[in-house]
């Protein structure tokens, strides 16, 4: 079977998953499968079949597993968002349509040779820093939860961090391909760029309080630097610098300090000072409220989960029990309704996506393509780790999105862009010459 045929079979399976999940939501909500709910599954499949056709035309030799895996992940995201809030589910569906459109457009535009992007590397580098700092521009940025992540421009709002990630990877892939021999010599003066990027990451933390994006960007940088130069010393030095910087900021910034305290000690037996209302409260009732409630949500799922539509997210009077469920804590909603089995299946999908992405990097022939695919894939894995790890109390919780799953337009579009780039690299690597 060719890659494209496997892709089509995979997409039909993804459509089936989406159909069953959406029907479950409808049953839980209305006790019957309505015609509308049944058609959602068909629409979902139609959308991805359309994407498949574009892929077949533009990148016929691309990896056949990536698109179906992305489809399964969006199926999880769509059905959970629809279950939590029907209107948000519809909006999310619209964003998936736009995302697939962006995927198709990218494939069409760059189908001949995506490597033209390499010549714009410095433009991408500047764009990455600019996008990361955009939320801290007065008048544009909005603070949510004390973190500047959002940009408002008129009726539009978006999270530039997601796009910054892709710009950064494009920049690094071009820059490191050019400079990797020089950097590999390990001379002291070559540490310059490393220090510059470290400084930029720290600046992002100070300016936006966004520890998650900074960690993600810096992690991608170190991974790509290692792939390009093979010098573990850079990674060691980079990690040491980041930890030292974060340590210094820990003492300087209350926000960072609070995140770490919540991570280490979410529960207290005695009331502690609560900055939210200025009174003495148990920490689980104050600063770590979100994290703790999310853990309760996960634990309530148990092995098999409550079933889609039957989880407990609101009180009997409709008030919210677990905050930020559709964005930061979507994973705790999935873990409750689908249980350990479903959550593990989701994580395995992420893992498969990562393995396929890295395979693309391995098979690519030129340095730019290899670095690009490895960077995109590693960034995808690290982002998943940072947000889900935050929810699971593996690392301090920071508000970034779960790729393809969380509610949010920018995130969906950026991840389809990422997928498009991987498909392009993959197509070139496998194309017969």
């Amino acid at each position, binding site marked *: 079977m060719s890659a494209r045929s496997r892709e089509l079979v995979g997409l039909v399976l993804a459509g089936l998953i989406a159909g069953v999940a959406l029907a479950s939501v409808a049953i839980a909500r209305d006790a019957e499968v309505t015609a509308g709910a049944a058609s959602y599954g068909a629409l979902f499949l139609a959308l991805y079949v359309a994407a498949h056709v574009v892929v077949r035309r533009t990148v016929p030799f691309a990896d056949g597993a990536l698109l179906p895996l992305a489809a399964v992940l969006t199926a999880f995201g769509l059905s959970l968002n629809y279950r939590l809030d029907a209107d948000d589910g519809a909006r999310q569906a619209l964003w998936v349509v736009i995302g697939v459109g962006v995927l198709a457009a990218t494939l069409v535009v760059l189908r001949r040779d995506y490597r033209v992007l390499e010549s714009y590397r410095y433009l991408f580098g500047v764009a990455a820093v600019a996008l990361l700092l955009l939320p801290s521009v007065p008048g544009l940025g909005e603070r949510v939860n004390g973190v500047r992540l959002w940009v408002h421009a008129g009726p539009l709002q978006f999270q530039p961090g997601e796009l910054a990630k892709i710009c950064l990877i494009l920049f690094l892939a071009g820059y490191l391909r050019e400079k990797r021999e020089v950097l590999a010599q390990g001379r002291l003066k070559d540490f310059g760029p490393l220090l510059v990027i470290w400084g930029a990451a720290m600046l992002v933390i100070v300016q936006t309080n966004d520890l998650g994006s900074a960690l993600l960007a810096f992690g991608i940088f170190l991974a790509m630097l290692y792939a390009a130069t093979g010098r573990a010393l850079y990674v060691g030095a980079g990690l040491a610098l980041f930890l030292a910087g974060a340590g210094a900021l820990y003492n300087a910034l209350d926000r960072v300090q609070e995140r770490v305290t919540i991570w280490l000690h979410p529960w207290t037996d005695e009331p502690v000072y609560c900055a939210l209302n200025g009174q003495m409260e148990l920490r689980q009732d104050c600063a770590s409220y979100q994290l703790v409630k999310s*853990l*309760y949500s996960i634990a309530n799922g148990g092995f098999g989960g409550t079933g889609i539509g039957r989880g407990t997210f609101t009180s009997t009077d409709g008030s919210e029990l677990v905050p930020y469920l559709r964005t930061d804590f979507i994973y705790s909603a999935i873990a409750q309704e689908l249980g*350990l089995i479903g959550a*593990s299946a989701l*994580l395995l999908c992420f893992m498969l996506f*990562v393995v396929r992405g890295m395979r693309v990097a391995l098979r690519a022939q030129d340095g730019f393509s290899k670095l690009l695919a490895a960077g995109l894939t590693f960034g995808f894995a690290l982002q*998943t780790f940072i947000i889900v790890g935050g929810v699971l109390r593996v690392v301090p919780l920071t508000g970034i999105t779960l790729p393809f799953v969380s509610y949010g337009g920018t995130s969906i579009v950026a991840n389809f862009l990422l997928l498009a780039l991987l498909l392009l690299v993959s197509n070139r690597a496998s194309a017969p010459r």
Partner: protein
Amino acid sequence: MNGRIVRLTYVATALIAVLVVMTTYWQTWAAAGLADRQDNSVKRVAEFSIDRGLIFSFEPRKRLARNLEREIEGKTLFFRRYPQGELAAHVVGYSTVGRSRTGLERSLNDYLTGATGNLSSLVDKALDELRGKPVRGSDVVTTLSLEGQRVALEQLSARCGAVFAFDPRNGKVKVMASAPSFDPNLAEERFGRISRITADCSPAAPLLNRASAGLYVPGSTFKVVTASAALESGEYTPDSSFFDPGYCTVYGKRVNNFDTTSPFGTITLENALAYSVNSVFCNIGLELGAKAILAQARRFGFYERPPLETPADERAPSGLYRDGRLYTPAQDSDVDAGRMAFGQERMLVTAQQMAMVAGAIGVGGRLMEPQVVERVVRPGGRAVFDPEPKLIRRAVSEETADAVARMMRLAVERGTGTTAQISGYSIGGKTGTGETGVPGSNITWFIAFAGRDEESPPELAIAVVLEEQSGTGGSTAAPIARAVMEAILRSTENP
């Protein structure tokens, strides 16, 4: 570059593998611990879709807690109602969406929600879940006498205090009443009305279960412990004779009897207990030392949380307290043994603990574990929890118990506790008046056991405590004990 990319692949997959491991941890290993946390509102609300088990009184068999079904957004939810209102509020507690549970609703939650039990009941539960039927929890039958609860609360009326009565032969709790009480039906939506309850004390603290968590100065009821320690030491007999000058001297200071105007002169230990003579017990305390008396108190259950099926934080251990914490003196000289011997000196006790003391004396020194749950049954009728009477330990030898029991009977026959007499029954009791330092505001006590005659083991042991009283234990607490005992004893008489 490929070797490096392979290594990056390992790192990336390892990161996601960590997430699988941690999800497993939270959903299996840690799940039970999280489910028990009181701030776990997710679990609490989720359990409202369970057809929660009912709670019954023992006699007459009435529902203390039932369910009210309501459909909300296509889900059947089971809200709690408490038909007996404030009669058993402190034992049963409440289960609400907005607040953490209390009482048996909290401690027996796993039974009431069907989460624990034997294998077949767990299979039942899993089947119900699969069929989409509401899970049915197990019913709890308590040992409480509803009539006893009613009389106790009626007798306490506006006064603050508690009554704890149980069968000392097997530990079954008949009455556990705390005043002021509250209507648990108000806990969900009209909690403000509970917090505005007032009574003859401040703070009224209606939610506090004074019967097991109210710590009070024991006053002369503690003389039962001291007398037991004295007889167990082998250095005293009931006939040991003392000279009472109306006071005793501790560290050169005089400690007066309750009534200093008429010293008893030469008096036996037996009569000293019956008439509650402080100076005698003060001298025994000085002689035995604080540690020996505390060792005896420990054998009665002091310094440990008294066992019961209610939540642990609704029960307080009795003992010496310093700065709000239990305190064990390292040396005899750390504590004023003379004053401790007659129940002052930072000694704080609960009604449950003192009822356990009276009960153990009544039944020959055997300290039985109080139990308020008769059994827990599945909807089909099979029992999933059927507790056996349990001996905690022997508190005193049978000879000592019988001797102290005789002294307590004497106290009711002609001593300080005559107001507790019930015709046709043999009552042994001890009054207590604990001084709080505020004149006219005493803690008054009566502890007792009651049986048909002196030969047969008593059927009932009781402790009554009242706050902010101007009278004595004999005039305030003993009549309440009498009324409650009579109500229960008469109801168990052969019909």
